[in-house]
Each structure stands twice: as structure tokens, then as C-alpha cells.
């Protein structure tokens, strides 16, 4: 049976690839982001390539007061909704993020905004007693590093939130999956120095949708990041704090 999936932050490269992987299964989609022009373009593309039903609407993660009304409008258009993918995120500039006015936005989008909309989605799916929530966190949330700890803290908090949500909704038949991507070849990382083992958005998209058919609830993508992060987490703090990471 095909699903009806809401994708939040649908205009990023990873979200677009994820939408493609859902579309390939014949799912109905609702794409949400702040960029109406891009939503229109991506929706048209998915309809033409896959012959599926695609809706779209404006969504601003930071404007939490609008989230209730937004979700109501999604339900109105796509009442069969059974899945949610949270794909929005904001890396920000780490140096600027030392100033709280910038760091605040990183937290507001990656954590506060995410919790706001996911609470609403979770409550709905809980009543429905089936469905799934896939949250895209980051390996950056596994250990604080000087290069991006504000972003890492927000994504790490999101991971914890998703873990708790998974625990709560398990008994109600709702699956919650946390995706932790390593380096992915997107506009966020393009041209950055020091990247290695960079995965394509297509790979991510296929594996994100594929994770629904597997049992793991915390999924590192590509898989070897689980072990890279395991090693990084095992480095004793006295040594770790002397490293430039």
C-alpha cells in the first residue's frame, strides 16, 4: 500500500532525493518549505517523472506559532497522511554563532522548530495508531567539536528528542527513525575543505526510505559513520579537547 508523506524542508538536496525515493514507490507527497518557487518546480518534476500526486505548501520552521494551522492545512489536503520526514536544517556560520543572536537561529530552526512541528505530527499519528516519523539529525550531534558545536548541540538535542518520541510512540504503532548523515554532497558542504567519504544525495534518499523496511531506529548514512563516530566518541576528553576538530 502506498503512503502519504509530508516532507518538511522539502527543497534541500537530501529532501528532494528522499521525495524521489518515495515517489518511486508511488507515494503521495506533500512538500513544505519557505520557498514557494522551488516547491512548485520540485512538485512539477515529481509529478512528471513519477505520475504521482504531489501537493505543496509554505512552512517556516522558525514561526512555531503557525505550525498548528499549517498541519491542519496539510490534513485538509492530504487526509491519508501516514508519514512525516523532517528534513530542514540550518548550519549557520559557526564563528558567527559564537554570538547568541546567530546561535539562537541555529537552535530555533534545528531544535525548537523541529520539536514544535513534530509534537503536532506525533500527536496526530498517535491517534491514527500507525505511520512513521523520520528525523534527519546529524553525526555532528554525537560529540561537540569546536568547528560546529552550536549546530551539533541542536542536532544532538533533536536526536535525543526523536529517541524519546520513538520510545513513546512504539506502543502506538508509530515508527520513529533518526537519520544521522555524515558528509553529503549538497549546497551546505559544497567546496568545504577537509571533507572525505562524501555521499550523494541520491544515496541518502534511497537509504532514508529504505530504512522503513529495516529494524534499526538510529541509522548512520553511509553506514560506516556509525563506526567513525564510535571511535570519535571513545576518544578521552583530555585528548579530545586538545584536538582541532
Amino acid at each position, binding site marked *: 500500500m502506498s503512503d502519504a508523506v509530508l516532507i518538511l524542508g522539502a*527543497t534541500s538536496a537530501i529532501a528532494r532525493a528522499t521525495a524521489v525515493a518515495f515517489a518511486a514507490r508511488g507515494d503521495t507527497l506533500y512538500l513544505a518549505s519557505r520557498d514557494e518557487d522551488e516547491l512548485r518546480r520540485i512538485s*512539477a518534476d515529481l509529478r*512528471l517523472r513519477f505520475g504521482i500526486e504531489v501537493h505543496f505548501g509554505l512552512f517556516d520552521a522558525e514561526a512555531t506559532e503557525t505550525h498548528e494551522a499549517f498541519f491542519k492545512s496539510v490534513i485538509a489536503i492530504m487526509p491519508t497522511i501516514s508519514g512525516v520526514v523532517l528534513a530542514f536544517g540550518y548550519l549557520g556560520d559557526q564563528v558567527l554563532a559564537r554570538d547568541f543572536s546567530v546561535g539562537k537561529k541555529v537552535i530555533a530552526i534545528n531544535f525548537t522548530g523541529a520539536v514544535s512541528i513534530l509534537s503536532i505530527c506525533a500527536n496526530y499519528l498517535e491517534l491514527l495508531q500507525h505511520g512513521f516519523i523520520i528525523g534527519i539529525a546529524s553525526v555532528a550531534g554525537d560529540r561537540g567539536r569546536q568547528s560546529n558545536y552550536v549546530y551539533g548541540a541542536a542536532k544532538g538535542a533533536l536526536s535525543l528528542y526523536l529517541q524519546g518520541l520513538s520510545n513513546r510512540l512504539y506502543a502506538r504503532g508509530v515508527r520513529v527513525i533518526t537519520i544521522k548523515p555524515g558528509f553529503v554532497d549538497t*549546497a551546505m558542504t559544497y*567546496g568545504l575543505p577537509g571533507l572525505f567519504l562524501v555521499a550523494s544525495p541520491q544515496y541518502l534518499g534511497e537509504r532514508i526510505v529504505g530504512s522503513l523496511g529495516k529494524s534499526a531506529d538510529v541509522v548512520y548514512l553511509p553506514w560506516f559513520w556509525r563506526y567513525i563516530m564510535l571511535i570519535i566518541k571513545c576518544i578521552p576528553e583530555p585528548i579530545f579537547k586538545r584536538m582541532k576538530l
Partner: protein
Amino acid sequence: MPTLTTNLTGWGRYPTYSCELERPERYVDLSSSVHSQIARGQGRSYGDAALNENAYVLLTERVNRLLELDVQRGILRSEAGVTLADILEVIVPKGWFLPVTPGTKFVSLGGCVAADVHGKNHHHEGSFGDHVISIELILADGSQLLCSSTENSALFWATVGGMGLTGIIGEVTLKLTPIQSGYVKVQNHTAENLGQMFSLMQDAMIDDRYSVAWIDSMASGSLLGRGVVMCGHHAVEDELSNNFHSTNIPKINRSIPFDCPSWMLNSSSVSMFNALYYKRESGKREPFISSYDSFFYPLDTIGQWNRMYGKRGFVQYQCVVPDSLAFEGITLLLQKLSASRRPSFLAVLKRLGAEGRGMLSFPIAGYTLALDLPIRDEGLFVLLNELDEIVLRYGGRVYLAKDARLSADSFCSMYPRYDEWLKIKQRIDPENKFSSSLSRRLSINEGTR
């Protein structure tokens, strides 16, 4: 926008330049503010058309959304970064085909407009630009302008074949061609020499919607110009047996994973291959059914085939000689090539129809010869200059999308509408924001001297 500094080449892997790459993901980011930039789709032009040494290259590969398809009338609107392969996957099952297609489907739609590409049907249906209804061009100031043969038509015909130098092609609306199946009915005809080859290609009884000739470039003397003319048309229902009712197409399954050593393609190995290929293809005397992929895109099934020519890369030399003197001109070119003992793995001869409206478009009525020549030494460039002289003497021209080495003077002589083009270029892009390694090599912004 973040940039990536990297060494970049075209499909021929010569020349190599360090370029600053930008890769927008949103349509609005196609209008970037940087100076000296050139759009690059799939990097399938052979030389330096999509290179910009120490300056910006705008990758359009992620701005590739299909936007609208009118299934009744066969009209497609799409972002220009999309590949022909992606388009075919959507349109063939709906009974439509590209009106014109080059020999690979792994090119971008925008690139097809910018190079005003032609296919095996130019003598009947013209070049790619003839089927473009309109384009949305992103100008130097970032504004978007709709251009067609009726609206901003001078700019439209300066952009069709304009090698990306008038702006960034954002969207293209294209008229498709109806088909009844994804198959082509093919008929091969063997020519034992160039004389026979020309009479076959001129024979209206033999000609079909699509025609192309493969030439054994190593054959000389009385066998000079021997080869096989391959003609075909989209198969209609009646021509297909029950075995051919699927639109399933074979996927890429082979690839050249490394650079072949440069000695691998030498005159004896190429001679041997050519002799075998000649024997195989000329043996097909009866008409046969072929998938559209294997008829139009035979090389696409070998991924990265450009690596066959080794690390130093190759030059594809494609020129056209006007109709009246074509036989003489092509004979001279093949004699020169054959005498040089430089193996050309691929030699293709095609008929071109009447000249189109693109000011810098390549096709003119005549015969076009394309040769793949590996770079061994500087001697190749001497030979190619000699070929240029022959082409010029016969009133022909060299195809910029394939070119890596033509001189500015030869370019001016070959493209008589260049002055007209330059006026539009200087009006629409007075600060020369859109430039490439090719445009600088050809001194394209400096006018005729």
C-alpha cells in the same frame, strides 16, 4: 554561493584548466553575481567551451526539474540542467521523442541549445534550435528574459548556438516529435569507397529520416572512404513483431574504469577494429529493428569511453564542407588524415541540410565529418591546422562544441555572421560577464580584426 576550485576538462580531456565551480540547487541561484562565468551542464562539449580558466563555471546539473508536459501537443518545458536521458525516460512511454538528438543522451538540455546541436536528421528537420519554442535567459544583471523566434528574436538566435555567452539558459520549451514505438527500423548500406558513399548518401531511395555514415578512416588508396551508411526511422506499429512491445531499454552495464595506456590505440589496432566493424556492419543486409538507445546512442552503453584515449585525452575534429564541393573537400581531408597515419577510432560522415538561423550555429548545407584523434604529440595540432586550411578553402567551418584548438582568425573566417552576433552580445552583456576559455581563445569579444 560556495565555490570549489578544481582542475576541469571537457569530454575530450584536453585542455585542463583550474576553474572555480559554483553549483546552485535553486533556480534563482542561477543568477550569480560573479564576473566571468560560463554555464556547464554535463561537460560533454569536447574542448574548452565549458571551461573558464581561473574564473567561474556555473554547474547547472542540479537545476534540472521537468516543469510541464503537454501530452496532447508534445510540448515540454523544463529547466535547462536536465539531461536528454531524463527527458527520454519520461516522454518515450508517452509516445514522444526528441525532435533532434546528438549522439549521446548524457547532455543537458541547455547545452543542446547553446551548441545548437544536430542529429542524424538534420537534412530533414534542421538543428535543435529549430524546435525550441522559447527559452528563459538569465542575463548579466540577473533579470530573466523570455526569448523566442518572435519575442527578442535577435537575442534568441544569438543564444541558439551562442555557446552560453549571452547568458545562462534557465528554462527551455521544446516541441517534441510523435513516435509509435521506442524502436527504430534500420537499414545498412555498404560503400566500398568514398564515391560510393556519396552516391548512397545522395540517393533519395536509400535516404531515411535518420542517416549517418561510419567511415573506416584507416582505409586508403582505392578503399579511401569505405564504410557503412546506416539509415533508419522510428518504427511504426506494423513494423514491429510481438517481441518488441516494451519500452524497456538496456541500462549502462560497461564502463572504462581507468585510463587506457596511450599505446593501446595505434594505427594497427584501429585498422584491425575498423576492418572487423566494417565486416560486421556491412554484413547486415536486411533491415532490422533496433532500440532507440542502440541506434541513437551506441557509445552511451560504455560509461566514460573518453578514457579509452589515455591520460592525454583526444580532440574531436568536426567540420562541414558545403554541398557543391563536399566530395572533393572530404576526399582531401581523408587523404590527409590517412597519410598522417594517425588513427581515428571514430570517423563519422553526415549530411546537413540548409543553414539554420542561429548566428553562430555550426550546420550549413553540406557534409560533416567528425574524427576522434588522440593526442600523442604536438604534431596533431599541426595536422589539424592543415585540415582547417582545407575546410576554409572549401568554405566550410569547424564545430565549436567539439573544438579545443581553432585559431581566432580561422573562427572569424568560418563564421560570417559573427559580427552580427557580436553586436548583440555587446548590447546584452556589455561587461562580458559571460565568457569561457573558448571565448578568450577565439578572442570572441574583440571583433574581426
